[in-house]
């Protein structure tokens, strides 16, 4: 059931501010130098370097059990005010607000204290800011590369404002591209650091970056003993495309929605919405209600197609190709309806800042209603049988456990988190578009395994069908697009949606001349991928693909850095006798 912002009966946390203003006071007491409500649902606090960790610790304590790390954004503000900034976005789901904790650093050898020791989910965001902007985070437990390849030259920071977006690495002074070798030197070191002797006992199976089981490039190194995974290391960001830089360099505010839509081939529209919401909030643009409803309908249609796609992939990985075919056949109707409504099956192109470009009425509404009936019936019918097949259930029950504590600590979001008992859903916690007008039934399970993730998504498919019907019923008449003048520059905005995979956050700082100064999209898979090594430890080799797939990973969503044409795959010599040891006869 949807919880109204501000009310809570869990008994957690000692602070219960009834409004943003009240929240502001709490934050001031915790040590914030400056507190500003940037727009509904978002409070920006400026904290000095010295007080940062204490502030975050205080925040975690006051909002225990609900403060969740959403994302962190490093920004080069040197052209405007001579400093760098790191903005940590922390979600308070019960309160229904986002706290933007901004810390500044000087321009020369910028450094900021790391908050990862107190808030582990900040790990990747700080490493990303370090890679792309060169900000050092004092006290970070794993200060190694994340986004950029290991042989990327030092001192070259792509997201700094003095790095032109079309600069090639070969043109940078002092860089010899020919000598870049392409061997990873540092791996994402798991807390259990392995001694050289320990490594000899295990065979390592490299999986990726290209592998038939994977739909996008990603790299896992699995340490196995026989058929059991002892440890796993992950390295991603192979599909980095320089989108943030592109949007900040040569695009206008209304061109970015089309770029945002192409972050992902499955959940593109949710990115377009999150971006537009961020700009609309920053600029104070009120989107007409009818447009909000149309956005919501399309967002749920996207959720339908995404979940059905995922079901197909999951069945395929379980060897049940008949299930794969069935799911994608059912999904085909959703795609056709999307094409009829928007002009394209996947890149809807419906959003501009301020509203939507097309209407949904008349014959299009009947198309949607017919599709919903068909999908509901066929999906329920097929799953009723498929989820009873013993060999299928046996492979997902009690497999890939992610405990509730781990899910919370690592900042898991979406169906993945909800399958581990976390009741979080942006549609209910921080309502956006037209979700404020209805109640969303949030599906939560607590068996923490792959089966739970399947069941959560199953319920969400049926819930999406119900939501679309509700939206169609309640949709008011009205304009499709707000009228507005030039977008005011240097305003901060946070746009958040519940993508099919979880919370999707876009942080925007508007720029001069209808442009964007900083754009940081943080896709849900970014958080969920961090949970994979934890889930893989102790599992059988055969379970690895389905566990990875159970988070519904979207690597294209996660990566948005500069692509460098250097091989990053590693080849290990497998000692055969190690693999034989422990193999059952």
């Amino acid at each position: 059931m949807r919880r109204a912002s501000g009310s809570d009966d869990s008994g957690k946390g000692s602070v219960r501010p009834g409004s943003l203003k009240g929240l502001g006071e709490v934050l001031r007491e915790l040590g914030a130098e400056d507190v500003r409500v940037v727009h509904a649902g978002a409070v920006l606090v400026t904290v000095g370097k010295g007080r940062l960790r204490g502030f975050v610790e205080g925040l975690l304590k006051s909002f225990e059990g609900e403060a969740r790390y959403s994302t962190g954004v490093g920004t080069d503000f040197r052209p405007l005010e001579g400093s760098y900034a790191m903005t940590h976005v922390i979600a308070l789901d019960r309160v229904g607000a986002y706290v933007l904790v901004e810390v500044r650093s000087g321009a020369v050898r910028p450094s900021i204290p790391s908050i990862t020791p107190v808030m582990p989910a900040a790990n990747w965001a700080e490493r990303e800011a370090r890679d792309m902007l060169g900000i050092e985070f004092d006290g970070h437990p794993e200060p190694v590369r994340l986004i950029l390849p290991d042989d990327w030259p030092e001192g070259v920071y792509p997201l700094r404002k003095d790095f032109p977006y079309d600069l090639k690495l070969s043109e940078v002074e002092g860089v010899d591209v020919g000598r870049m070798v392409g061997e990873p030197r540092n791996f994402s070191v798991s807390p259990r650091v392995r001694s050289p002797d320990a490594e000899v006992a295990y065979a390592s199976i490299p999986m990726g970056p290209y592998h038939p089981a994977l739909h996008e490039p990603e790299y896992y190194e699995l340490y196995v003993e026989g058929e059991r995974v002892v440890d796993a290391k992950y390295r991603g960001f192979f599909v980095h495309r320089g989108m943030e830089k592109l949007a900040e360099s040569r695009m206008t505010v209304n061109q970015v929605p089309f770029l945002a839509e192409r972050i992902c081939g499955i959940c593109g529209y949710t990115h377009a919405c999150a971006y537009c919401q961020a700009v609309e909030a920053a600029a104070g643009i009120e989107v007409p209600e009818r447009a909000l409803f149309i956005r919501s309908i399309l967002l749920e249609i996207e959720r339908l197609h995404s979940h059905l796609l995922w079901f197909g992939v999951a069945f395929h990985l379980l060897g049940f190709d008949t299930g794969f075919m069935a799911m994608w056949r059912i999904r085909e109707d959703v795609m056709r309806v999307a094409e009829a409504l928007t002009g394209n099956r996947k890149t809807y192109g419906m959003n501009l800042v301020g509203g939507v470009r097309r209407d949904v009425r008349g014959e299009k509404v009947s198309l949607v209603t017919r599709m919903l009936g068909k999908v509901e019936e066929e999906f329920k019918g097929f799953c009723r049988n498929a989820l009873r097949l013993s060999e299928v259930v046996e492979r997902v029950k009690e497999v890939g456990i992610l405990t509730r504590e781990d899910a919370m600590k690592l900042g898991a979001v979406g169906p993945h988190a909800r399958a581990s008992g976390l009741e979080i859903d942006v549609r209910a916690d921080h309502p956006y578009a037209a979700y404020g007008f209805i109640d969303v039934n949030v599906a939560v399970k607590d068996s923490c395994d792959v089966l739970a993730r399947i069941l959560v998504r199953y319920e969400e498919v049926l819930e999406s069908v119900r939501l679309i019907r509700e939206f169609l019923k309640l949709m008011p008449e009205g304009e499709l697009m707000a009228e507005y003048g030039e977008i005011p520059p240097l305003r901060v905005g946070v746009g958040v949606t519940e993508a099919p995979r979880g919370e999707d956050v876009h942080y925007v700082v508007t720029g001069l001349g209808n442009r964007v100064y900083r754009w940081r999209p943080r896709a849900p898979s970014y958080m969920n991928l961090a949970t994979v090594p934890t889930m893989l430890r102790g599992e059988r080799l055969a379970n690895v693909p389905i566990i990875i797939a159970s988070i519904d990973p979207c690597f294209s969503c996660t990566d948005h850095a500069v692509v460098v044409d250097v091989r990053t795959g590693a080849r290990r010599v497998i000692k055969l006798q190690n693999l034989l040891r422990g193999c059952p006869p």
Partner: protein
Amino acid sequence: MSRLRVLIEGLSKDVVTEKYPYAPVEVPEGFRGKPVIDPSKCVGCGSCVNACPPNALSITDEGPYRVVRLFIGRCIFCGRCEEVCPFNAITLTREFELAVTDTADLVQEVKLVMARCAACGEPYAPLREVRKVAERLPDELRALAYLCPKCREVMASHYVSFARR
């Protein structure tokens, strides 16, 4: 039993494979396919170029012509060009079978004759655009449309300096 039902369900219903490409496929009304420029309507104003997110549309001045160029290889079929064009000169068709063997076949060009400035004789804007603008201006200002921006500025400042009340 569930297994049997899965089988029966599959066998009792029709095959869903489409016959395409051995039979044509219908795309719905409103499908965003290849954009086409109507050379008789385009004035070379550049609104589409400003709006185009991937820079598929471009405008260059080549000698006596202003060339509006659309490169389908970059097009994302968003339809912003169609939306912003003041003269409905560019529209999206429903064509999606766009593979070609020569990239030159992906380019549409409209060559517009440039008007020459009545004062200095330099080409400054497409003639059609100038005419369209001129017909919208009040009589006393119409002559300004036939001047290039530099000469227009000079003329306008004369008006300001030597205006008679």
